[in-house]
Each structure stands twice: as structure tokens, then as C-alpha cells.
């Protein structure tokens, strides 16, 4: 099983969600995070004074998928989340040791 974490622009969340559901991914978790890459932050103006926002709001989408579906899912996320401008985000892939469904106690692929 693979854990796929995608950091995306917040307004892309709906597209990514729809793409994942369309591909048969049943569950996902999102969190509101902040971060920057090479995009860096941006400048704002308040009462005549400038200040920089270093950490920009992003959405993190986490899904667990069986190994054979991982590549397809990564490709789907990337194409749904892409705008072409800097700050589109990143996808991180790691191996999952185990997954447990709390209600039934199932382990492994049947728990995804």
C-alpha cells in the first residue's frame, strides 16, 4: 500500500476530489496547511505599511491506495491540481506498513 500526500492550491480541492472519486478512491483526508516552495510568499499592505506573508495557505490531500493503483492516482492528482503557474504544489509518495479499519478491525488492502 502507498500513502500519497498532495499539497495543492486550496481552490483546486474540488477538482482533485472529483478526479479521485472518479478513479474509485473511496476515502481521503484533507488538512489546511501553510507552506512555500520556490514560489516564496507575497507582500501585503496594511495602513501604509508593507509586510510579507511567507507561508501561503495550501490544502494537503492524503489518500491510501493499493500499490497497483498508485501511479494512476498520482497522475490524476497532478493533472487535476495543475494550473501551470508557480505554487501548484507537490505530491509525496511513501510506503504504508499497515492500514486498519477501526469499525471492523480489518487490516491491509481490504481496509482501504
Amino acid at each position, binding site marked *: 500500500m502507498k500513502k500519497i500526500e498532495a499539497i495543492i492550491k486550496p481552490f483546486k480541492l474540488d477538482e482533485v476530489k472529483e478526479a479521485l472519486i472518479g478513479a474509485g478512491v473511496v476515502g481521503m483526508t484533507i488538512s489546511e496547511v501553510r507552506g512555500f516552495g520556490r514560489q516564496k510568499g507575497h507582500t*501585503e*499592505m*496594511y*495602513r*501604509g*505599511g*508593507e*509586510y510579507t506573508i511567507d507561508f501561503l495557505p495550501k490544502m494537503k490531500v492524503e489518500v491510501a491506495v493499493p500499490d497497483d493503483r498508485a501511479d494512476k492516482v498520482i497522475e490524476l492528482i497532478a493533472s487535476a491540481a495543475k494550473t501551470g503557474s508557480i505554487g501548484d504544489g507537490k505530491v509525496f509518495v511513501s510506503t504504508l506498513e499497515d492500514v486498519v479499519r477501526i469499525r*471492523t478491525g480489518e487490516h491491509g488492502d481490504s481496509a482501504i
Partner: protein
Amino acid sequence: MRMNALIQRVRDLRTRVAGRIALALAVALVAALVGSGLAQDKPLDKPAEAPAAAAAAPAPKPDPGGTATGGIADVPAKEAGKPTLVEVADAVGHNKVSINVMWTLLTGFLVMFMQAGFALAETGFTRARNVAHTMMMNFMVYAIGMTGYWIMGFALQMGGLGAIGTMGGAGVLDHEFTISLFGKDFGLWGLKGFFLAGSTYDVAVFTLFLFQMVFMDTAATIPTGAMAERWKFSSFCIYGFFISMITYPLFANWVWGGGWLSQLGKNFGLGHGYVDFAGSSVVHMVGGVTALAGALVLGPRLGKYNKNGTPNPIPGHNIPMAILGCFILAFGWFGFNPGSTLAGTDLRIAVIAVNTMLASASGAIFAMCYMWLRYGKPDPSMAANGMLAGLVAITAPCAFVSSFWAFVIGAVAGVLVCWSVFFIERTFKVDDPVGAISVHGTCGAWGVVSLGIFADGTYGDGFNSVQGTVRGVLYGDGSQLIAQIIGPITNFVFIFGASYLFFKVLDAVLGMRVSAADELEGLDVPEMGAHGYPEVHGPSTIVRGLAGTAASWTPAVPAGAMTAERSR
């Protein structure tokens, strides 16, 4: 399976029957109400024993148009419906005073609502970690200020006012402490009306108390904005008593209580003496100058200034809240300025209200344009400050100027407040999170001076016991401008001096400022005990309480039942 289906059908039937019974009951109830409504005018069958009484009483006539309600029968008279001339004159006088009392009370209620405006504006312009503390200061300044004012402040301010002309009244406020200088009387403070007791338990005095109290509280709440996010609450509480019992009442006595500033005309021929119609200096400068003194003693917020002295913006956490607060203040100002006639029968209130409105608009527009041109964006917080600046500035001259000058006064204030904010922040290096010093202090001073320039002589005959209407230098009276300069200088020297000294002593004895650790974490928990926004700090703070309670227990469900439910 059939059992389940049967059970479900019985449930459905029960629901349908219950619904139909409820509908029938509702129809019956409506029919009963309508029937009794139609029947209420039908005369009851009268018993035969009282025919005379039934014949004499006429049937009551309704008056939906309102033209027949209220007339000669309502004039209090010994012979009902036939009042004498004296009785009619009595009623007229009483009604006139009633209109004035009602007006003063209702406009006072509007000014009370400005407390909410200040609370929202200040909290919106400061950070989320301090909301409970900022709100609590604004909330308690109302209660604490009122208490101090009732105990002593009102007496010091108005104790020697004399008769309240617009409200009849017996003139019980008749004790002013006066000294003699240059052969003239200098009224310094009043000595009647402590606890509104004794002979001051009078309707005119009580009306005046309410009105003056909400003005005092407007001044008292201004410094909480400039001193927010680092002021120790216990120290603030003591301040609340100080401003309501000492500094505000003294200056207000000199201007509104018959004290020496108001008598500069009578005593020294300076126009009508120092004139401040609704309080650009009595209320707003007192607030702004006290705020300056307090902010100087407190020092800036941590992180506001860099080592090289350049300031960092610390954005407010809720611009909508702040803008709403600003609108509430603008609304309350319809009580603040027109109410200061203390008379609904003084129809200058129409001009005052319109002047107030126009200055608020020009203040907002000119502040917005200034920021837009200078910094590239129309900053909402400065536009809000601009509206308030216009309102503060027009507060003194509102009764004496034309609508054109009102607009100009507001426009100047809109630009002046921006300059002042930058001066205070960047040159003087005083941290004022909401711009209170500039809005209320700087523009309050502009307001009283502008009166000395633009007052056009269409109102104010007899003001401060000086014959003739109030005029500024553009309309022929240069001496009024001199009086209008003496006032704000006196205000600054006295209020800044007394407040700075007070805050210094308070700092030495109690400590004005919270610890650095508390300030960085946010004042809500250390000062108020709990976050103002508890859910921002994680759902676990709420869910944790369920462990071990009945809500945390769920019955064991056999695996088969779940599948059956899903398949239906």
C-alpha cells in the same frame, strides 16, 4: 422480513394519523380565534334590570386614520373637556419639556450603543489571540465608568450648572467651586449631585445624567483601543474609575458645566467663550490625549518596531467586524451631535444631523483617496478611520456651520488622520493599534479650531451667556478663534499631564503591562481565563470532556445487523 415490513407500515400509518389529528386541531384553533375576533364587538345580552345604564353608555368609535385621537379632552383640566387658559398653557409647557426630555433620553440611548461600535472596531483591528481581553475592556469600561461617574464624576462636572433651561427644572445643580483671578470668577468644579442623592433626585437632573454619562463613557473607551494587546486588565479597571471620576469631569465642567473656559466670552470678551457643541475636545480629545499618555507609558507591542525603529504592520484579525463597528459608531453619532441640543424642540437638530452625516462621508472618501493615491490601495481600515475622523471633527462645529463647511471639515479630517497616524507611528514611534490618538486626539483639536474659522452666525444666540449668534473668523469674529485655540491647549496640558502622571504611578504601584510571555501567547488565557475563540485552538479542547461520560458509550452492534440495514 415480513415482520419488519409490517412494523414499518404500522409506523407509517401512525405518522399519517398523527399528522391528520394535528392538522384538524390546528384548523379548529384558527377557526376559534377568527370566530372570537369577529364576535368580540357583538353586544352581550344585557339583563333586564339595568336598561338605563345600557342606554347611557355610547358605543366606542375606532379611529384607524388617527385624526380623531387626542384632543381637548386630553388636556388636564379640573372640568374635563373644558380647560382654562392657564391649564392649556400648563399643558403646553409640560409637553415642550416632555419632548426635550424624551429627545435627550433617546439620543442618549443611541450614544450608549456606540459602546458596541467601539468594542467591535477595536476588536476587529486587533489580533484574535486577544479578543476576549479587548472586548472585556470595552465592556467593563461601560459599567465601571458609569459607576465612577454616578459616585462623583457627574457632580464634579455639572454640580454648578444651574437650571437646565430646556428641561424646566428647579435648578438644583447650584454649587460650583469658583476661584477669583484677574477680578473674574473661574469656575473649577461642581459639588452637587454625588450619587444623584438628595435634592438632585430630580427628573431633569436624571435625564442630564444619562446623557452626560454616555458621553463620558465614549471618552473613557477611546484609550482601550490605543492601549490594546498589552494592557494589564487590573490596571485598566483602576483607570476606568480615574477617567470617569476626575479627568473627564474636570475638563467637562470647564466647558459644559459653566466653568471658566465657557466664560471666556463673558469674562474676557473672547467670542462666546470656548465653544464645543457636542465634544470634539471634551470627549474626543480627552480620549485621544489620554490614549497618547497611556500608550507612551505602556510602550509598543512586542514586534511592532524593529531595532532600527521602523514599524511593522500588525493586521487586525477581522476587518468586517471593524467596519461594522465603524457603522455603528456613525449611527450612534446621530444621537451624539443632534442630542446635544438637549431639546427636540430646537429644530437646528436637522442641520446638526445633516452636517454630521456629510462630514462622515467626506472623511471616509478623502481618507480612502489619500491612501489609494499614496499607497496604491484603498485601505479599508484607514477609510473607516477617515469616517470616524470626520465625525470627530464635526462634533464641535456641527451646530454652527453650513453643510458646505461641514463637508470641508470632514474632508480635512480625512487627510489629517492619515498624516497623524503615520506621524504617531513612524516619527513619534508610539504604537496605536487602532489609530485612536489620531482619530480622536488630532481630529478633535481640528474640530474645535474649525469652529473658530467656519461658524457662520446662523445659530447660537445667547450661547454661554453671550448675546448674538456664534461666528468664526470667516464670518467676522476673530476672538472666537482665540477662544477656540485656548481650549485645546488647556485640554492637552491638563489631560496629558494628569493622565501621564496617573499612568506612571499606576505602573510603579501595580504594573501597567502584561509579561512578555503572556503578550506573545495572547492575553485571553492569562488575563481572562479562556480563549475568546476556543474552537480555533482545536476540537480536542471540546471533545476531551466526553471521555467516561454516557455520550462516549456506544452499544455493541452485531456484524450481521449492519449489513441488513445497508441492503434495505
